[in-house]
């Protein structure tokens, strides 16, 4: 796997503090190639809501998701769609309780003004029953859709509790990519990172390198994922991978300490480290402008 870290100075220049903005892509490349222009649009990524979690890392676990929904509803302009990148619910051994949490989650997010809402599973939703309950509520765990010139591919690296995509899904992925032009605009959504971010914390996908290899011949491919409960940016060759914050508790930087334990709730700054992301897609320029929002203002 080819890896390259985004230059720290370049990142800081782009990111700023607070409502960080991160530009991803190769601006100007598409125009230089004389490609047809497509509409710019916005989408919002929310992740790792863990509905059903209870514990000191978030004393408002029963209210944070509703606050996030309210914050998304205040966005102007309104995004074209919203996607939740997994761990919608916190896991439970009880199949009935799992369905109760999925039901409650679905009811809460129904308050989103944006009606095009997409979902992908996380291991907390799907690993204990191989996606059975999740699929009853949200349909297939891997699928594609197209929007304003961008081809979106949702990959499921959680229904197998071993965190693998599996040969069958990889074959499906390969077949889907085979019908695309090499300069197609492609966005991949997953829950876990496809690359080995921190295998010692289980922040990886067993066969993720195969999926990345399949993407390598495409000039304009970007991956958005969750799982690690923090904003993170990484590149494998020319493919950018962007992790989103959580809406339940933040986790420490990859490998920064022995245990991947949640960061403590800060009463002086409640909800700090939590948030969601707006993505400004500029397909003609093959560019994504990422803006990070807090759950509540001033956090």
């Amino acid at each position, binding site marked *: 796997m080819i890896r390259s870290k985004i230059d720290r100075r370049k990142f800081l220049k782009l990111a700023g503090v607070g409502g960080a903005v991160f530009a991803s892509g190769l601006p100007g490349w598409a125009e230089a190639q004389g490609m047809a222009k497509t509409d710019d649009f916005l989408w919002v990524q929310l992740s790792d809501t863990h509905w059903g979690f209870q514990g000191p890392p978030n004393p408002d676990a029963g209210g944070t998701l509703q606050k996030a929904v309210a914050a998304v509803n205040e966005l102007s302009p309104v995004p074209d769609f919203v996607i939740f990148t997994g761990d919608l619910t916190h896991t439970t051994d009880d199949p009935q309780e799992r369905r109760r949490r999925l039901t409650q989650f679905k009811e809460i997010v129904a308050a989103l003004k944006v009606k095009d809402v997409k979902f992908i599973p996380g291991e907390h939703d799907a690993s204990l029953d191989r996606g059975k309950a999740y699929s009853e509520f949200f349909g297939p765990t891997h699928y594609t859709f197209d929007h304003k010139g961008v081809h979106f591919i949702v990959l499921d690296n959680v229904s197998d*509790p071993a965190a693998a995509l599996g040969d069958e899904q990889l074959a499906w992925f390969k077949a889907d990519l085979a019908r695309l032009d090499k300069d197609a605009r492609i966005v991949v959504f997953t829950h876990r990172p496809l690359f080995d971010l921190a295998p*010692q914390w289980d922040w990886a996908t067993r066969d993720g390198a195969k999926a990345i290899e399949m993407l390598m011949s495409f000039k304009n491919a970007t991956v958005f994922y969750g799982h690690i409960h923090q904003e993170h940016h990484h590149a494998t060759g020319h493919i950018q991978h962007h992790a989103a914050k959580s809406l339940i508790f933040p986790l420490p930087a990859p490998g920064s300490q022995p245990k991947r334990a949640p960061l403590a709730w800060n009463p002086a700054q409640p909800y700090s480290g939590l948030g969601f992301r707006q993505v400004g897609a500029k397909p003609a320029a093959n560019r994504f402008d990422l803006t990070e929002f807090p759950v509540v203002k001033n956090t």
Partner: protein
Amino acid sequence: MTTCAAVTWTRRRWLKAVVAAAAPAALGPAYRAAAAPREVVIKMTVKRFEFSRKTIVVKKGVPVVIEITSLDVPHGFAVPDFHARAEIVLPGKATQVRFTPDKTGEFPFLCDIFCGDKHEELEGRLIVRA
């Protein structure tokens, strides 16, 4: 005479060489064990959400076999720093993971098959000493 002495010396040397070459086969596994460190087998179990050993101490350069059995549901066992991983650890069936630690220090091992609510806490430390 000179020629004869040379032949005798050569024959002795040849016999010495033959004996040296044949020794490992003649002495069997014991001789080979002296040449390369013997594998250390470490038996342990795993259940939700606990490894029976929280710490494993091994020696650098000595091959290790972790023989692990699940007491409840399928689990994983991985030591990423040494690229050592079990495909799956099934209940009631011993799974072996072989590796040779080639560096000293303290390294995490973990369950890498999602097993429930406290899966993220199912981990331990491998200590490799010189």
